[in-house]
């Protein structure tokens, strides 16, 4: 699994976006940060809480100049139907049917043949600044991901559970 400092593997894949099939390329994402989250499957019972959760919080991520991208091994038709089932998803759901992208990020579960629940935040140079993975049966916290994004954007030393408004750590220290 990629760790902070690693360059993010590029991608250019089909995706479902706003009810249509489109293409999504890392090179064409122009926001300061890019949040890429892998999830195991469409049409499951934990994934929609995350997929829909990121969609509900999309405005907050956009306000942080952060693009959100979801990836699973399902094909783009499945993504389209799944997004419709969830009431529409306004960020791209990438189709990675053979798991190439998941493998490139080191989050492909060879036993289950699905991507792990893994989250990456990439900086402007498209290097990993944050990476995290959860067991397949445990859903991620969208507010916590947003907190991380906000903390990263400060460029400051952020103590545990830092939130906007809370004091930063000493500016002459790196960690």
């Amino acid at each position, binding site marked *: 699994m990629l760790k902070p400092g690693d360059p993010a593997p590029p991608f250019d894949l089909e995706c479902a976006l706003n009810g249509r099939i489109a293409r999504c390329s890392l090179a064409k994402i122009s926001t300061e940060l890019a949040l890429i989250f892998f999830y195991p*499957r*469409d*049409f*499951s*019972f*934990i994934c929609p809480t995350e997929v829909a959760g990121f969609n509900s919080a999309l405005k907050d991520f956009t306000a942080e100049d952060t693009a959100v991208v979801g990836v699973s091994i399902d094909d783009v038709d*499945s993504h389209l*139907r799944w997004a419709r089932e969830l009431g529409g998803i306004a960020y791209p759901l990438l189709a990675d049917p053979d798991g190439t992208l998941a493998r490139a990020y080191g989050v492909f579960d060879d036993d289950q043949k699905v991507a792990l629940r893994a989250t990456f935040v990439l900086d402007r140079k498209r290097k990993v600044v944050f990476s995290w993975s959860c067991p397949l*049966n445990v*859903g991620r916290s969208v507010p916590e991901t947003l907190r991380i994004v906000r903390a990263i954007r400060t460029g400051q030393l952020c103590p545990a559970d830092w939130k906007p408004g809370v004091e930063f750590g000493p500016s002459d220290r790196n960690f």
Partner: protein
Amino acid sequence: MDPADPAQKKQLFERLSSVREIVFGVQDGVLTTAGVLCGLSGAVSQHSQVALAALASTAAGALSMAAGAYLGAQAETEVLRAELDVVRADATARPYTLQEGLLDELWKEGLSREAAYRVVRLLSASPRALASTAEAKMFGLGGSMLGNPALDGLVMGVAFLVGALVPLLPYMLITVQRYDLGGALVATALTLFAVGYFEGWLAHRRDRWRPGLRFLAIAMSAAAAGYLIGLAISPLGATAG
């Protein structure tokens, strides 16, 4: 009885769960008693002593089998009930776990992922429906598996008793030596064949004679072994007496 009626079919399946006790009890009663008769006939010469010992063995066997069946069913029911409680509590507290597991099972059984998702989603409208389906599909558990220990014990005891009377009655009624044991063995053979045939009938088999012969072969082997063991230990009886 209408075989297409699901309620009647369910009732039939519940009744069929007693078949194990009936078949086991009858078979054990017949075999044990025939074995005792053969063994004692080889070791003891007096007809009345053999009959008395076989009667005592029958009474002890019936009580022991009934108690064993009761205790076994009681333990099984308690363990199963505890497992079902855990699954049902999970369905309420962590429905995602059951939903995902059930979805996977349905998917593996050939439904598309999307169809399986919709089925599970519909079932999720009722935690009880979700739990009972998950119990059956994921864990192979079912409410109908919860037996009635008292009934199981009673059925087993009576079945053993009925089975034991099959060789015992001819043996007691026929007083002519040699024919007494022969009569008991013929009755035993016919009954065991009938039990096997009955099992084949319940299983809708066309070759019902096959399970009948299987029962018969096992019975004859056990009886022959019992007789040989009796012959082998008869010198010990002579020494002790």
